[in-house]
C-alpha cells in the first residue's frame, strides 16, 4: 500500500525517518523504525499490523502523547519533536481527538461530564461546552444516557461516548487506537461507520489503528506495519 496522500489533499501529518526506541533495563526495544508517512487533510488512514508491529506507538507519537527518538514529525503544523510541553498540551486540546481501545472514560464522571472534560480543560466557557457536548451526545444516540456513569453503559455506548469526547473541541484530526478491539462485531461496525461518517461528511482526518477488517472498506489508504517498519 502507498504511504502517500492523494494528490488533491494537503498533508496534515508529515513524518520522515521517524523512530522510537525504548530502553527496558539493558534491553533496547525498537517501537518504530525509520517510518515515512504523509496524511492529507480529509483522509481516512487505517494502520494495520499484528500486535507489537508499532501501530499504537505511531498513534501515540501522532497524538503528542509520546516523543520520537529521532526523525521529523509535523502534525497540524506543529513540530512535535521540538514542541514544548505547553505547546504539546495545547496541541492535544485543540488539534487531535483520541479514541482508545479501552474507552478510558473517567469512572466518576457521567457521560455528559466525560464529554465536557476536554472543553473545560481547554478553558472554554461551561455553557458553550455543555451545549456542544449535548449536541454530540445526541448525535451519538446517547441522549437518554446523558447522566449515567460509565459503569452503567454497554461497551458500544462507552466507545460512542469516547468518540463524542474526542470531538468536543472540534479537532481536525481524529486518532483511534483499536476502537473496536473491545466491542462485539455489531457495535464494532457501528463505531467504524461513525468514524467513516465523520471523515466523509465532516471532512475530518481520521487515522485508525486496527488489526480487524471492519474499517478496510471505508479507508482512503491502508498502511501496514511490521516490527516497527512500514511494509
Amino acid at each position, binding site marked *: 500500500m502507498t504511504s502517500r496522500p492523494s494528490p488533491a489533499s494537503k498533508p496534515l501529518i508529515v513524518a520522515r525517518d521517524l523512530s522510537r526506541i525504548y530502553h527496558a533495563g539493558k534491553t533496547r526495544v525498537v517501537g518504530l523504525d525509520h517510518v515515512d508517512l504523509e496524511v492529507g487533510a480529509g483522509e481516512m488512514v487505517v494502520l494495520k499490523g499484528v500486535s507489537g508491529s508499532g501501530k499504537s506507538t505511531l498513534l501515540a507519537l501522532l497524538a503528542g502523547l509520546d516523543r520520537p527518538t529521532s526523525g521529523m514529525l509535523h502534525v497540524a503544523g506543529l513540530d512535535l519533536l521540538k514542541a514544548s510541553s505547553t505547546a504539546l498540551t495545547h496541541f*492535544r486540546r485543540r488539534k487531535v481527538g*483520541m479514541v482508545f*481501545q479501552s474507552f478510558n472514560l473517567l469512572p466518576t464522571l457521567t457521560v455528559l*461530564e466525560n464529554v465536557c472534560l476536554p472543553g*473545560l480543560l*481547554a478553558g472554554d466557557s461551561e455553557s458553550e461546552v455543555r451545549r456542544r457536548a449535548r449536541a454530540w451526545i445526541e448525535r451519538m444516540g446517547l441522549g437518554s444516557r446523558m447522566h449515567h456513569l460509565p459503569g452503567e453503559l454497554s461497551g458500544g455506548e462507552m466507545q460512542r461516548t469516547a468518540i463524542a469526547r474526542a470531538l468536543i473541541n472540534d479537532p481536525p484530526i481524529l486518532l483511534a487506537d483499536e476502537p473496536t478491539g473491545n466491542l462485539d462485531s455489531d457495535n464494532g461496525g457501528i463505531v467504524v461507520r461513525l468514524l467513516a461518517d465523520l471523515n466523509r461528511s465532516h471532512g475530518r482526518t481520521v487515522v485508525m489503528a486496527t488489526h480487524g477488517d471492519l474499517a478496510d472498506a471505508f479507508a482512503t489508504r491502508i498502511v501496514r506495519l511490521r516490527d516497527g517498519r512500514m511494509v
Partner: protein
Amino acid sequence: MKRAFFPKLFFWLHVRHVRRHPGRAVAVVLGVAIGAAVFTSVRLAMRASLDSFSRSMDAVTGAADRVVIRPGDFVPEEWVARLLARDEVASAAPFLSAYVQDEDQRSSPFLLIGIDPFLDASFRTWSRAGDSRAGWDLVTRPFTLLMTEKLARLLDRSVGDEIRLRHPRGTAAFRIAGILDKEGTGALEGGLAAVADIATFQEFTGLSGWVDRIDLKLRHPGSSRDIEALRRLLPRDLVLERPGSGKAAGQGLLRAYAANLSVLSFVSLFVGMFLIYSLVALNAASRRRETAVLLSLGATSRSVFLLFVTEGLFYGLLGWFLALPLGLPLVRWMVEGVGRTVSVLFVRVAPEDLVLSPWELAVSLVGTLVVSALAAVQPAAEAMKVSPKEAMALSAGRERHGDAGRGPVVPALALIASVWGLSRLPPAGGTAYGGYAATFALFVGFSLLSPYVLRRLGRSSAPALKRVFGPAAYLAGRSVARSGTRVAVSVGSLLTAVALFVALTIMVHSFRNTVNAWVHQTVSGDLFASPRLNEMNRHRNIFSSDQVALLKALASRADLVPFRRFYLQYRNLPYQFEVTDFAAWFPHSGYLWVEGDPASARRSLLEGTGCVVSEVFANKIGLSVGERFRDRIAGVELDLPIVGVIRDYRSQGGVVFFSLPRFREMRLAAGLLTQDEEWSGVRFFVREDRADRAGVLNRIKRTLVEKFGDRVSFIEGNELRDRILRIFDETFAITFVLLFIALVVAALGIATTLAVSVLERSVELNTLSALGGSAAQIRSMIGWEAALLVAAGEVLGLLCGLALSVLLVYGINRQSFGWTFIYEVNGATFLWALPLIFGAALAASFPVVRLALRQSPAALLREL
C-alpha cells in the same frame, strides 16, 4: 483551563472517588482528626493558662509606669508620701497582697489585695458592681472588703455577710461590702480575689508601715532624666524598675513548657501526615490510568500536581473539622490538666472555661493544612510524571512495584549526623529551637533509612523464613524487600511513634529517678514547718520571735534546721535565694553535685564564704564554678564566689544556697535585722538514736498545734516527698496520653498501608490463589509482611528513640528548663512494652488480612 473549573474538576475526580471508597478515607481523616484535636487542644489549653496568668498580672500591674520594690523584703510605706511630693511623679499608690483562706475552708486559698482606694484609682480598674462609692466604704469601715462574684458563690456569702479569714498572723472577721466588677481587679486569679483597704490589710497581716511595692505614674514617662533623679533619691536597697518584670519572667517559664507540649502534640499531627501520604500515594498509583487520560485530554502536569496536593488538603480540612467536636472534651480535660500542672510547677493560674481563641484555631488550621499539603507533595509529584501515553495501555494502570533500592541512605546519615550540631545551637527566647530541629532531623533521617532497612530485612530474612515457616513467609520477605517508598513511609510513621515512646520513657524514668534521689537527699527532713500558707505567699512571712523560741525548745527532741527563702529575679530569671544552717543540715543531708569539689564547697558553705547554685541557675544565667554571684537581697549586698553547681528540680526557676548564720551577720551589720532570728521555715530531723521516731514527731506536732494553732502549718517529710513525686507523675500523665495517641495513629498508619498494599496487589494475590495457594497461605503471607514491617519500625524506632533520649536529657531539657538528669535506661519496661506495641500494631493489621481474598480470583484475573 479556567481557574473556576479547578474546584469542579477536583470534585468530579477526587471527591467522587472518595465517596466510592469511603473506608480508606475515613481511616485517614480520623487519624488526622485525632492528631489535629490533640494539637489544637494542647494549644488552646496552654493559651488559656497563659491568658489567665497575663490577665492576673495585668490586673496586678495596672497602669503603672514604674514600680518601687525592695528585693526580698517589704518597702517602707513612708516612701509613698515622699514620692508623691516629687515633681517627677504624677501619682503613687501602695500595693500589698497575700494569700488567705476562709476559716471554714470552703474555698482554696485566694488572693487578698490591700490598696489605698483613692490613690489607686488611677492605676487599677476596680469597683463595686453598679456603685462608685465602694472605695469610700472600704476606707470608712475597717475590716470590710470587696470580693468577686465567683468567690462569693464559692464561699456561699452575699453582700453584708461576715467572713472570717486566716493569715499566719491570725484570724479576723471581715464584712463583705460589695461585689467586684468582673473587669480589672475582678479578673485576678480567674476571679478568685478580694480587695481591702490597705490599713485594714496591714492591721490583719501585721505589716503596719510596710507595703509590697509602690506603683508610680510619671509626669514624663519617657524622661530618662526624671527616672535617674528618682533612682538617686531612693536608698540602695530600694529598686525602681519597670512594671511587669514578674509577668515576663513567668511567661518565660511557661513558654518553655508550652513549646515542649506543643512539639509533643505536633507529633500526633506529624504521624497523621504519614496517613495522608499513604492514601494520596495509593490514589496516585491506582489512578495512573485516569491521570494519563486526563493528560491525554489536555490537562497540564501542573494541574495534575495541584489536584493531588488538593486531595491532601481535602483530607486535612475534613480531619480538622472533625477535630473540633472530637477535641472538645479533650480540650476541657487539657485546660484543667495543663492549668493544674502550670499552677503546681510554674505560676499560679486559674484558667477559666474554654475560650476558642481565633488565633489558636487559625494556627491549628494552618498547621494541619501545611502538614497535609506537604504529605501530598511527593505522591503528587509522582503523579505529574505519568506519561499520557499510559492511557493507551491495555491493562489498568498500576504502580510499578520494584526494588525499594538503596533509598536515600547518604542524606539519611547526613541528617542523623547533623543532630549533634543542631542540638548545640543556643536556645532563643528560652525555646530550644536547635533541639527541636535536631529532633526533626533525627526523625526524618531514620525515616529515610527505612527503604534500605526494608530491602535488607526482606532479602536477608526471606531464605530463613522459607526454611522455618514455609513459602508464604518467604514470599512475604521478598515482598517486603521490594515494597517501595510508600510502605517505607508507613514504617517511618511507626518508627516515629516508637522512637518517641522509647525516648520519653527513658527521659521520664531518668528524670523520676534523679528527682527521687534529689527528693531523698536534698528535700530531706522528718518534719517541715512554716508560717501558714507560706509556700503560696512565697515565704514572705517569718516566724515571730516567740515562735522561734518555742521551735528552739523543740530541738531537744530532734535536730532543727532553720532556713529562710526569698523569691527574686536575676536577669529576668525567677530564682530562690535560700539561706540555711548548713552546720545543722549537712550531718543529715547533702546535695547532688554537678560541678565543683563537694568537700571544699561544703566547707565554704559552712564558713559562709561562698554559695552554690542550682544547675538551672547556672545554665540559664551562664554562671559556673569560680565565677561570682552578685545581688542585693533584703538590703544586703552579696558578692559571693560560686563554689558548686548542684541538681535541683524546683520548677519555678533557679536556686542559690548560702549560709543562714552568715546572712544573719550581714543583716545585723547593716542594721536590718528585725528580730533575733528571721526564719521562714524549719525542718526537724529525729535523731538516729531515738527509737520512737513516730512518737517524737507526734509530740512535736502536738506542741505546734497547741502553741500556734492554725498560724503554723507542718507536713511530714515522707508526705512532702510523696507529694512531690505524685505531682511529678501527674505532670507526665498528659505526656503519656499524647504519646499513646501518637502510637494509635501510627498503628492506624500501618493498617492503612497494609490495606492499600493488599488492595493494590489483589490481582497478584489472586493469581497465587489460582496457582494453588491456599487462603491460609495467602493470609499467612500478609500476616508475615505485617510482622516484618512492624519489626522494622520497632527496631528503627528503638535506635532512633535511644538517640532522641540522649538529646532530650542533655539537650532539649537543658535548653528549655536548664536541668539535666542522670541518664538511665529502664530495660524492664521495654521488655514488656516493645512486644506489646508489636502485638498491637500487628493486631491493627488483622482486618486487612481478611481483605486479601474478598473477590473471586476469576473476576480479578479477567481484569488483566
